[in-house]
């Protein structure tokens, strides 16, 4: 059911772990729903120089965390903010519809971590938009969408 890339990032996840003294941390999800994602960032001169994650969740959640942290490493905060869940899912060569919310968690985790950094530096947080988790016609069944 998972693409080769999803399986690769699940079996050999990149960037697992915590960063000591991170510049930004974002935790999203809920254990009741079966997934929690925690993203740690090191930020130098407005650029993400390191990203790590810890995730409780299914194969897609772990693969999405791995891919998302890969995608934002080296990017400026503005560039990283624009990494959408779709970009994460596409980089993974697709996710099953019901697992699309895992890529959304990754996007939300990055946004939370960046805003955590901004708040720590007395900068106004960027607006975390409440967005669709997927194409409207798809039904992912997750609590956030609640389309099922």
């Amino acid at each position: 059911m998972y693409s080769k890339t999803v399986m690769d990032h699940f079996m050999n996840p990149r960037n697992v772990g915590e960063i000591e003294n991170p510049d930004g941390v974002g935790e999203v999800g809920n254990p009741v729903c079966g997934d929690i994602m925690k993203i740690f960032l090191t930020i130098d001169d407005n650029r993400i120089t390191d990203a790590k994650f810890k995730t409780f969740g299914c194969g897609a959640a772990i693969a999405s965390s791995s891919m998302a942290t890969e995608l934002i490493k080296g990017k400026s905060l503005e560039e990283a903010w624009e990494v959408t869940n779709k970009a994460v899912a596409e980089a993974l060569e697709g996710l099953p519809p019901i697992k699309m919310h895992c890529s959304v968690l990754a996007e939300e985790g990055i946004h939370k971590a960046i805003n955590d950094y901004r708040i720590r530096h007395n900068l106004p947080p960027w607006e975390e938009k409440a967005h669709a988790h997927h194409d409207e016609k798809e039904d992912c069944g997750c609590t956030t969408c609640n389309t099922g």
Partner: protein
Amino acid sequence: MEDRQLVYMDHAATTAVDPEIVQAMVPYLHNHFGNPSSIYSIAREAKEAVDSARVKVAAALGAKPDEIFFTSGGTESDNWAIKGVAYANRKRGDHIITSKIEHHAVLHTCQYLEKQGFRVTYLPVDQYGLVDPGELERSITDTTTLVSVMYANNEIGTIEPVKELVSITHEHGAYFHTDAVQAVGHIPVSVDSTGVDLLSLSGHKFNGPKGTGALYIRKGIRIDTILHGGGQERNRRAGTENLAGIVGTGKAIELAMTGIEEKGARIRAMRDRLISGIQGSIPHTRLNGHPSLRLPGNLNISFDFIEGESMLLLLDSFGICASTGSACTSGSLEPSHVLLATGLPAETAHGSLRLTLDVENTDEEVDYVLLTLAKVVGRLREMSPLGKQAT
């Protein structure tokens, strides 16, 4: 992973058809292909084969052959028993009682009947998954026509106090159906000593072919027909018989019943070694289901801080086939309704693992699973943001 072996510990999901059973079936796909309803000689052979399988199934349950009706499996048997009794006795009452931990074949059938105007009570279970006979006593009324409680649960293996539930049911003049899909062929099940009126079984749960099953209907029970058509199964279940499948089910149940206690003891010993091995080597676990009133092959354990689907994927990469109560594998939001009914918090239910053993499993496989599971759980816990990582 070079020396990857396949360790199948998901026998509650399905089983392989034994070569001996395949051999028994093959002639009925080819040489003896006749329609049992026809009158020429190859059809008579087919008819005799069906009758002989019926005798074997009846013998396994302590029933009479004419109380056994072949179906397409557990789901059809459950549907037939519940809808058939509900509609045939509707003038007498519109109330059905079942439990919260039934298989969806029972639960969804009951929910359908609610939409048709029937009233359904879903009995709760205790932390071990046991239905309390006292709860049944309090719920049953003069309008109750059917009580349906499973013989043993498919997820946590808990064996229900069927005999007690039956006697309460009969005191109130209702019929008792049991979904015995997980029990038949694994532990001795007797329709007489328990007194059940209807019992569902499924062939592929005891090494028979998929798409086969039977419903036991005690003589004299008022039940409607659900599949209308030809006069097969003594006018109760239409449709040309699944000849080879029925032959396979007969052979499978015969083999399953041979030495059932001894096989059960061997399976139980392996299962218990798995449980104590896991509990001894992995902290933060919880055994789901009853410590002793459970199917010999069933083990269901929750691992804190990790999620079931990722556990299954990693176990699969080591060649181990298992199952979980996590939502993430079911295509739904909620984790297992069975685990939730036992009072397990959702996050713990997400981290549950079910291993179901059969006599073909070996002590070496138990060792391999113990070793691999500790690795898999350790690896996922290292990745998890939850808990203190006491792996």
